[in-house]
């Protein structure tokens, strides 16, 4: 019997959830002292914030040093509505959460083009702006004098919730948040976030709108932060501008990193431990800060992946985890897009020019790629081959000239949009998605074909689960096609170099492209693997897909290409059949060699 939602949750997981719920229920009954309950409440909502922040930091790889600002927005919104407008908690709280989410979106949309330290600074600046605004805009927030008499939530019978009941509310919500996060992160959503964390460029090439996903992750983390802020305001009864300081943002981040970013339970462990330390050592009022700093320092030195992260890496734990079930490849799962042959070239570069500062990498290049062939692209190092591929796949706009797709002129199109149009590629230097398994790499390749969206995965509907299973079988078929099916569940970076290249091809094929550009697929590959590569390219062509192959291995190119174009110093100097090219004096001159492959570094 399967549930319509939470369809993939195993009985074990349900048991874990029930045990957790039982613990939550029991805690205030065992520790019934108001002080302990106060501490438990704090642990619960600080955990919620950490969970959301981990989705952003651990899974998406974006740093935020300003989450105290979003926490503040949630807190102030609910507090103001409750005290000034007299609205009950049950209305003011959700509004507070929504406002925090909107604020997160408003911040993310213009800012997420910044990366790394720049993004850190943006979030830092945001956090400070909120801090300063809450201090100076006294008309709204009452500055450091703060907002007091914020009521606890009331029950239907009109009574205010007791501290224990409030704890159950917070912890219950926290449990739900963890459950939903587990669903989300265990599904294609988590996979996509990890993919874009691993390589934004590779993710874009299979159709992931990286920017939108980053904004999504930021908004999710903002919602969680706002939720934490709301609970905080109604717990304390008093909030003021002295609370939402930079140090708070730092402590949120610290709790995520200490627990282990990018794990499912890291935020829980990290936030509970970090927030308990001051309480436990409060009596040592002289030294408690030393202890706090010391524990953090020790954790980084000995457990650089965080507590949970390091635990997961222990061989003991790894052996304990169930090996993934065997997946049967889907018969007929190997679907190739049949490129239309209507006389038009699939893709055409028309007078294409690309400059980088003072360097002209492409100079009025004209190339037309006919459907269902292998179009080779060769030239000495630095001749512009990769640049051409980059322009054709939307990574760089042309400085002048046009790209035409099936006859129609393309305007400025980004890589993920090119993927939607059926064009993808592999990379000269392999770009994999971090620790994702081989199978998961191909699953990311299916990004545009998977229909179930974030809401269905949040709830884990049967539809979403079934779709996943189906595509996993298709992915196995693809892996079988390129010959690495037996390593499906291993982390991709464990694969030998040659097999990583094959994986990139499998990933690209998952898109079911009509045009596949392969950038030096044979680089660093041994002769056996080379043979397999040749067969794969031929099979792809026979399947109906158009390919453009950049290579330095002359045997490979001359063996498989139907047409070869030669670039030198950004210009096309020759084009024709392999025989014509091999005999062309200009080509020979460009290479200073005949048929000898230039050893690739």
């Amino acid at each position, binding site marked *: 019997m399967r549930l319509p939602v939470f369809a993939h949750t195993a009985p074990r997981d349900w048991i874990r959830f029930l045990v957790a719920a039982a613990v939550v229920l029991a805690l205030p009954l065992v520790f019934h*002292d*108001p*002080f*302990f309950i*106060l*501490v438990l409440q*704090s642990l619960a909502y600080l955990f919620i914030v950490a969970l959301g922040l981990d989705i952003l930091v651990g899974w998406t790889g974006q740093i935020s040093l300003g989450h105290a600002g979003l926490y503040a927005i949630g807190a102030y919104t609910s507090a103001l509505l409750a005290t000034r407008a007299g609205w009950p908690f049950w209305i003011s709280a959700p509004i507070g959460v929504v406002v925090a989410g909107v604020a997160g979106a408003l911040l993310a949309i213009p800012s997420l083009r910044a990366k790394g330290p720049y993004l850190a600074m943006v979030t830092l600046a945001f956090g400070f702006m909120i801090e300063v605004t809450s*201090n*100076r805009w*006294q008309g709204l927030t009452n*500055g*450091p*004098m*703060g907002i*007091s*008499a914020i009521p606890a939530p009331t029950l239907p019978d009109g009574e205010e919730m007791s501290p224990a009941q409030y704890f159950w509310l917070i912890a219950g919500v926290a449990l739900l948040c963890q459950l939903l996060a587990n669903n989300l992160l265990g599904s294609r959503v988590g996979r996509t976030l990890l993919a874009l964390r691993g390589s934004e460029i590779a993710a874009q090439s299979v159709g992931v709108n990286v920017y939108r996903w980053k904004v999504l992750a930021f908004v999710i983390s903002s919602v969680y932060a706002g939720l934490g802020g709301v609970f*905080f305001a109604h717990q*304390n*009864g*008093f*909030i*003021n501008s*002295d*609370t939402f300081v930079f140090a708070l943002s730092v402590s949120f981040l610290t709790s995520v990193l200490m627990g282990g970013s990018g794990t499912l339970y890291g935020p829980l462990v990290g936030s509970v431990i970090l927030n308990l330390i*001051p*309480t436990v050592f*409060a*009596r*040592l*009022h*002289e030294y*408690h*800060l030393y202890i706090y700093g010391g524990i953090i320092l020790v954790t980084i030195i000995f457990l650089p992946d965080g507590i949970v992260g390091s635990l997961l890496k222990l061989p003991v734990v790894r052996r304990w985890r169930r090996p993934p079930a065997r997946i049967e490849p889907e018969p007929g799962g190997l679907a190739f897009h049949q490129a239309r042959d209507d006389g038009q070239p699939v893709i055409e570069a028309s007078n294409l020019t690309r400059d980088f500062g003072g360097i002209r990498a492409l100079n009025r290049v004209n190339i037309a790629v006919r459907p269902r062939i292998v179009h080779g692209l060769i030239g000495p190092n630095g001749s512009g081959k990769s640049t051409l591929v980059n322009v054709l796949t939307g990574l760089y706009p042309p400085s002048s000239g046009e790209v035409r797709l099936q006859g129609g002129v393309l305007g400025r199109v980004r890589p993920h949009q090119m993927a939607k149009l059926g064009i993808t590629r592999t990379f000269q230097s392999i770009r994999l998605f971090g620790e994702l398994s081989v199978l998961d790499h191909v699953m990311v390749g299916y990004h545009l074909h998977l229909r179930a969206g974030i809401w269905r995965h949040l709830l884990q509907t049967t539809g979403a689960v079934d779709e996943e299973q189906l595509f996993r079988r298709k992915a196995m078929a693809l892996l079988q096609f390129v010959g690495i099916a037996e390593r499906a569940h291993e982390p991709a970076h464990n694969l030998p170099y040659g097999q990583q290249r094959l994986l990139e091809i499998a990933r690209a094929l998952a898109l079911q492209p009509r045009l596949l550009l392969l950038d030096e697929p044979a680089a660093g590959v041994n002769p056996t693997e080379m043979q397999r590569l040749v067969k794969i390219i031929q099979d792809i062509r026979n399947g109906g897909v158009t390919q453009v192959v950049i290579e330095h291995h002359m045997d490979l190119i001359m063996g498989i290409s139907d047409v070869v174009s030669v670039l030198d110093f950004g210009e096309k100097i020759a084009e024709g059949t392999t025989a014509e090219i091999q005999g062309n004096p200009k080509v020979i001159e460009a290479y200073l060699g005949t048929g000898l492959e230039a050893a690739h570094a």
Partner: protein
Amino acid sequence: MRARGWPRHAACSLIAGLGLIAASCALAADPIKIGFSVSLTGGTDDYGKAALMGFKLALKEYNAKGGYKGQPVEGVIYDDETKPAKGVENVTRLITRDNVLAIVGPVNSGVALAIIDIAQKQQVTLMDPIATAEDIIKRYAKEPKSYIFRVSLNDGIQTSFMVDYIQKKGYKRIGLMHDSTGWGQSGRDTALRLLKEANVNIAAGPEVFDQNDTDMTQQLTKMKDGNVDFIISYSLAPAGVQIAKSMQKVGVKVPWTSTWALIAPNFLKLGGKDLIEGIMTVTSYTIDHSENAKKFHAVVEREYAADAGDFHPVATAQTYDATRLVLRALDKVGPDPTRLEDRAYLKEVRRQMRDAVEGIDDFTQAVTKMKPRPFSADNHESLGRDSGFLAVWHNGKLVRAE
């Protein structure tokens, strides 16, 4: 310089800590406990540490004289890190876990505003030794039984000295500046209110600055533009020095005052007696204003010889008196320590403590300028208009402003 004091300081703390642990283990019944929560780290930690000295000294003397019914009273000390949420946690812990009979603290006005609600609701006496925002006492002043008491000159009273002086001297164009903390902002509100009541014109400001700002030239230029003849500034000692320095840069030469923040010895040390010459401040206590004060000062110097001259005399004195008031109430109520486990009894004792504090009328050994009867049912401010005055720095010493 602190450098030479710290090994000894650390050793003392360690021994004291061990001693405390040992002492608490040796007791048969639960000792009587008095809670203490102030900023020992964070923005106002210098006041917190000075307060801690006063608290410890008061307990030490009390216990040296035999303690409560022969047993030492224990002080439970927590750091609120100048964070309101931490203050809330500490106070809750003191009330529900540590079962204290009363609490002394805090130092920071922002933290105070967060914790008074809890103290009042839980009916536990809160004795504020330092935080000066008016609202701290005002909020529950109208209640039949308010649990919040103060041993400090609140902002309203301090500002009234300034306004009196302004009226006496006939200053007509006042400039107002303040820092961005809770104390500075509430001070600004107080000043605006009192100046309006006195019909005195504000010619420039209110201008705000960050307490750690190093350059106030912009704000002072506006004072200059406004042609002010006197400036009121809510600034702590470091900011006060920066204001004086910026005044030199901009060429503003009017008299100005802040609240008691500028009596801190650090003001003299950071500024040097020439720079701060003529700057005014409010004080409730000078080292020699009474016999009690002189003796107290001698004791503090001896006890904290390692930090001699580095402590903040008024903060320590106020906390010392505040703690002794609580201990006096303890003696008056005379609870049975063996019954304190019973929460109903504990609650009743705490209520009686409040009444006892309010009713003290024989406290003649104050080192601050409070009366023998410091409180009453409608007054929980032990230091009032007759407990302080405007003083001026002259040749590195504080003298009354004339």
